[in-house]
């Protein structure tokens, strides 16, 4: 899968809680991605088998809202997204250093 800045941001957001359930809106907040960018990437990750999705189990009469869809990282996704997140973390300090040198 082509590695983009958006994918790196999403990988960092997902790998903050690798075993947890991730919700679309929360992911957009934590990754800083707009819906128009986030959801197509999520769809690609689902197609690639890096994520799996499911629907929350709620009583609609009590919650007064429809059930939300959540995403979970698969074993393959943990490996791949972990690698992307790790390299994104490595690149961030390097980018800061190079910016500091240029400014100095």
């Amino acid at each position: 899968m082509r590695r983009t800045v958006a994918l790196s941001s999403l990988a960092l957001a997902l790998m903050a809680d690798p075993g947890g359930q991730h919700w679309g809106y929360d992911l957009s907040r934590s990754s800083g991605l707009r819906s128009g960018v986030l959801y197509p990437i999520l769809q690609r990750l689902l197609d690639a088998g890096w994520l799996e999705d499911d629907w929350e189990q709620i009583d609609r009469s009590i919650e007064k809202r429809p059930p939300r869809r959540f995403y979970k990282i698969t074993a393959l996704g943990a490996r791949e997204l972990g690698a992307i997140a790790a390299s994104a973390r490595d690149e961030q300090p390097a980018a800061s250093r190079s910016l500091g040198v240029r400014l100095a």
Partner: protein
Amino acid sequence: MTGLASLTNPGLWLIAIGIAIVVFGFLPGVFTRLLARAYPKGDPRRAEMIAELYAVPRGERPMWVGEQFERVLFEAVPARLRLSKSRRWEAKIRRPKTVFTRRAVLALRRPTRPGRETGVRRHVPVYPGALAMYGGGRKGDGYGVFTATRVSRLWVTGVAHTDDGTRVIRFRRRFVVGMVHHTPERTPAVAAGGLRRAETQISDAVAQRSGAGTPRPARSR
């Protein structure tokens, strides 16, 4: 003074509250539901979009709904177009009596004459419905034989079986090539976005019908 007077005007406050209710309470839900309908029926993203609205704080909802326009434009509209195209082709293939000018049989893989090969040129875009043609085939004299329906954007050399023998014809783009003797139950369901899978299915079917090995792409003439 007139500004202060207008602030104390209860009518203006009522209008402002009404606008706030409409903008933050009513319109986001309406627009989200309308936008969600752009996704094909059964698509989980449809229900997801509506459910996500309730997770968004009320103050952010108008902007969030605006973002959904972008999402729909790049996700739902292409999905809808693919589905529509696929349905059109399916309807055409499954039509019980389709009258075409003649029956044509495509000989995929086997040379029709020494030095002449036939097949689908891989780099030519092919509609999913055109790919679904392989299901209703019959076997002829040593040919991997397929019955074709309207072939669009397909460039092949074919063999037409006529009463007086076999002759080579050449099919061009958007050329109606034959009578459909279709068997819908054998027609592969080519879902939206399943072009690659359909190509694989055709390759497998061709290889199975005409012996081992993968089919060679056709040589353009």
